[in-house]
C-alpha cells in the first residue's frame, strides 16, 4: 500500500504540473490579434458594467429603505474601490487608447465612479438616491452595449 501511495503521487503530481504549464505556455504563445484583444477588453468592460449595475441596485434598495444607512455608505465605497481596478486597466491596457470604444468605456466608468462616490456620501434623501440610481443605470446600460459590441468583435 505504501508503494501504491507513492506511485499515485509519482504520476499524478507531474501530470497536473505538466498540464498547468502547457496551458500557461499556450496562453503566452497566443497571438495578440484583434479578436483576442476585443475579448480581453470585453472582460474589463463587463467588470465595470457589473459594478455599475450593483451600484444601481444598492441605490434602489436604499430608496426602498431595505438597507441601513451605514451599509449603503460602506457598500457603495467598497464597490467604488473595486471599480478602480478595471477602470485603470482600461486606461493602461494593451488596446489603442485612441480607439473610440476605449474612451467611451473610460467615460462611462468614470461616471459610475462619481455616482458611487456620491452614493457613499449621500445623506439618505430620496432625490439623491434617485439621482445616483439613474446615473449608475445609464452607465451600466452604455457599458453593456459596449461589452456586447466587443463580444461580437471577439468572435
Amino acid at each position: 500500500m505504501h508503494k501504491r501511495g507513492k506511485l499515485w503521487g509519482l504520476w499524478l503530481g507531474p501530470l497536473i504540473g505538466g498540464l498547468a504549464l502547457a496551458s500557461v505556455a499556450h496562453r503566452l504563445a497566443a497571438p495578440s490579434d484583434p479578436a483576442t484583444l476585443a475579448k480581453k477588453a470585453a472582460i474589463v468592460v463587463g467588470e465595470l458594467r457589473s459594478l455599475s449595475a450593483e451600484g444601481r441596485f444598492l441605490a434602489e434598495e436604499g430608496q426602498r429603505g431595505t438597507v441601513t444607512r451605514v451599509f449603503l455608505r460602506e457598500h457603495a465605497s467598497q464597490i467604488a474601490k473595486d471599480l478602480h481596478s478595471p477602470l485603470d486597466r482600461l486606461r493602461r491596457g494593451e488596446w489603442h487608447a485612441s480607439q473610440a470604444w476605449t474612451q467611451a468605456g473610460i467615460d462611462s466608468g468614470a461616471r459610475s465612479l462619481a455616482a458611487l462616490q456620491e452614493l457613499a456620501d449621500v445623506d439618505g434623501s430620496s432625490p439623491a438616491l434617485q439621482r445616483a440610481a439613474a446615473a449608475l443605470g445609464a452607465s451600466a446600460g452604455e457599458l453593456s452595449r459596449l461589452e456586447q459590441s466587443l463580444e461580437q468583435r471577439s468572435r
Partner: protein
Amino acid sequence: MNKALELFLGILTAVGGFVEIGELTFSLNAGRRFGYSLLWVVVLGTVGIVCYCEMAGRVAAVRKQPVFHLIRERAGLTAGLVTLLAANLVNLMTCAAEIGGIALIWQTMSGWPYRPLIVAAFVVLALAMWFLSFEWIERVFGLLGLFMVVFIAAAVHSGPDWGAVAAGLVPGLPQGDAGSGLALYAYYGVALLSSIMLPYETYFYASGAIEDRWTAKDINLNRIIVIVGSGVGSLLAVALISAGVEVLAPRGIEAELPGTAALAAATAFGKWGLLAALVGMLFAFAGAAIETAFSAAYNLGQFFGWPWGKFRPPRQAARFHGAWLVVLLLSTLLILSGLDPVDVVEYSIVFAVVTLPFTYFPLLVIAADRRVMREHANGKLANGLGWLFLAITTLAALAAIPLLVITHGGKG
C-alpha cells in the same frame, strides 16, 4: 452530555459551518451565469464530502489516526511533504480570504475603516482560538453561522421556477449565459465542486473527532452528523445559486463582495434580512478562518509527529499552538498587503481541488483495509463511492488549472 443533544448540536454546527466565502462567491456567480444548470454539482459535491468526511471520522474514531498521519504513513515522506505544503498553502490562502471577508462585512455593519478591521479580526480570532475550548469554538461560530438560513428563506420567498430547479439536478449542458461556452461551464463546475469538498473540512473533521475523543461507539453519531449536517448545509449552497439566478442575473451583477449576497436577503426581508445575512456570513467566515488555521497546525503536527490538539495546553503542544498563530498572522499580513479577498479565494478554490486526490487516496486505502479497520472497514457502498469520487476529483484536479487559464480566471 446527553447523546441526543450532542447529535443535535453537531448537526447544527455542521450546517452553520458549511458555507465560507469561496462557496458563497462561486454559488452566486454560478447561478448568475448558468441558471440552475449547475445544481447537480452541489448534489455531487455533497455526496462526495459526506463520503470522505464519514471515512475520515470513522478512521479517526477507530484508529485514532487523523488525515495527515495517514498521508505520511501511506504516501511516504516525499509525496507526503508535497501534499502537506500544497494543503497548507491552500489553508493559508483560504484563511486570508476569510479574514478579508470578515473585515468587509464588519465594515458594512460598523462603518469603521477596512484595514484596522483586518487587524481587529486577527485579534478577535486569535483570542477566541486561544481562550475558547474546541467545543465552544464549534458551537459559537457554527450556531451563529446558522443566521445564513435567511438565504434559504429568501430563495423560497423569491418564488423560483421549481421546474428549472428540478431540471438543474440532472447533469446537462448550460442554460442562461449561452455565450459563455463550455469551458466556463466546466470551470464553474470544478470550482463549485471544490468549494463544497474543500480539503480542510476533512482535515478539521477528522482532527475534531480526536479532539472530541470519539471511539468506535461514535461511528453512528459520525455518520448522522455528516449526512444530515452536510445535506442540510448544501441547501445553503442551493439557496445562494437561487439568489444568483433570481436576484443577480436579471440585474447583470457578478458577485465580487460579500455585501452583494446580503443585498439579496435585504430584497426579500428588508433590514432584518440584511442584518441576518451579515451576521450569518460574519460568523461563518470567522468559523472557516479558525478551521483553516487549526487545520494547517493539525496537518503539521500530525505529519511531523508533534503533540497536537486544542485539548492540550500550550505548554504541552507549543509547536501546534505556535503554528496556528503563525498561519493566522501570515494570512492577516497577506490581506493587509492589499490583495482582494475574492481574488484570493478564487485561486485558493482552484488549488484546493488539486490537493483533493492526494488527500483522499490514503484515506480510502486505509478505510477499506480490513486488516486495519476490521469490522469497521468500508462496505461495498463506501468503497464504490470512494473510488468514484477519487476518479472525479482526479479529473477535476487535472482540469482545474488549465480551465482557470483558458477562461481568464472564470471571467469569460
